[in-house]
């Protein structure tokens, strides 16, 4: 049942210790900072976080990692010039890393939302990221078996929602939003505006409301 919490804190209140949380965003574009701050405040820990990166600077996901709330990161590109909080935790052996090629990350998330248990892909074949994984020759190419990534919760950011939970995004901030919304059991979306049902052109809706559980408007 779709709901519209008044605050981000109310929206994330149900997130439990040990949850797998998908967090949208590529770098800072599309990163739901207000929801992440609320996740910090709610105190949940031992989280497995799925995001393309592992936090930048001193905000959002980086703070969650700094404060020791994240047990494991599943991501494609943790190391950046300003990923110092992740770097420190990783070097201290205080955070687990599952490094996934970016396209495999996206497709494994998509697979979860589409009810697909796994798939074969040429990406990573013959590299150390395929070590220990099943391989086959398909269509004349070596391919690696990759499994779906499911999540308890997705925290994503969109531009506009309507009363049915339909979503429209903005430019490259769309990135992981639509596939994470479909992959998680419970999807929480922060938006800049909520419009009356019927105001969004059905032809332009990117994420249909069936994938969305909670919508909260942030300033």
């Amino acid at each position, binding site marked *: 049942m779709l709901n519209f919490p008044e605050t981000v804190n109310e929206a994330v209140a149900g997130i439990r210790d040990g949850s797998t949380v998908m967090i949208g965003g590529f770098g800072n574009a599309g990163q739901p900072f207000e929801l992440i701050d609320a996740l910090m405040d709610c105190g949940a820990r031992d989280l497995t976080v799925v995001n393309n990166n592992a936090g930048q600077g001193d905000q959002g996901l980086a703070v969650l990692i700094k404060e020791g709330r994240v047990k494991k990161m599943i991501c*494609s590109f943790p*190391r950046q010039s300003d990923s110092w909080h992740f770097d420190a935790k990783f070097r201290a052996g205080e955070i687990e890393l599952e490094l996934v090629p970016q396209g495999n990350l996206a497709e494994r998330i998509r697979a979860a939302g589409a009810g697909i248990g796994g798939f074969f892909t040429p*990406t990573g*074949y013959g590299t150390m*990221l395929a070590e220990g994984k099943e391989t086959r020759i398909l269509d004349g190419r070596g391919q690696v078996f990759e499994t779906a990534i499911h999540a308890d919760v997705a925290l994503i950011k969109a531009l506009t929602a309507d009363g049915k939970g339909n979503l429209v995004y903005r*430019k490259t901030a769309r990135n992981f939003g639509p596939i994470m919304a479909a992959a998680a059991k419970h999807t929480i979306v922060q938006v800049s505006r909520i419009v009356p049902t019927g105001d969004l052109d059905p032809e332009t809706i990117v994420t249909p409301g069936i994938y969305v559980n909670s919508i909260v408007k942030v300033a």
Partner: protein
Amino acid sequence: MSIQSNGQAGIHAGIHAGIQTSDKPLGRDDLARLVARDITSGSFVNLGIGQPTLVSNYLEPEQNITLHTENGMLGMGPEATGGQIDGDLINAGKIPVTELPGASYFHHADSFAIMRGGHLDICVLGAFQVSATGDLANWHTGAPDAIPAVGGAMDLATGAKDVFVMMTLLTREGVSKLVETCTYPLTGVGCVTRIYTDKAVFLTGPDGVQVRETFGCTLEELQAMVPVPLTAASAAGT
């Protein structure tokens, strides 16, 4: 090959006696200009982070090239400046960019399906090493204290129809990055089709490594720097 004289040093349009087309090694911008000229009109292209990004400065409008950025856009325009800067419109290097008329946005799985599904004509990537059979190593030094980060490199390497590499031929220590077998962890197997370096352009494929042109050295001098057998490419092969 004749190259327009836009003031770049050392490139002679008229050296046909051999495959040496410049009396000096090419600088980064001259190399980017050469890659840009080699991209077929109408192509869909992804330019990797770093040196490959320079190629966009030399694409001509009449080439009608569409740039893809893996965070979810086709029709990417130049880097944004001043009032154009918009945090929701960035490229794979997280640099603010602009959109061109006809641009489109899509989510990450669709963006990687564009690569993985073989829809991109060319990607241009940097490299630590490329092997004689076109294996690519460009994501990880393998150093024990290095934090690994792969991003979209493996998807680009295996998905694009042509994979061009741009790199200096030699390391700072003077060791060839074109090698018999990569010693750094691989990004993709047998995926590189061309290597653009400051000293030569190499074509990799089933016929071994062919040299299309050299810059500031002869084929013999080049061979002395590179530990894999080189042959001159036939004109038809360029």
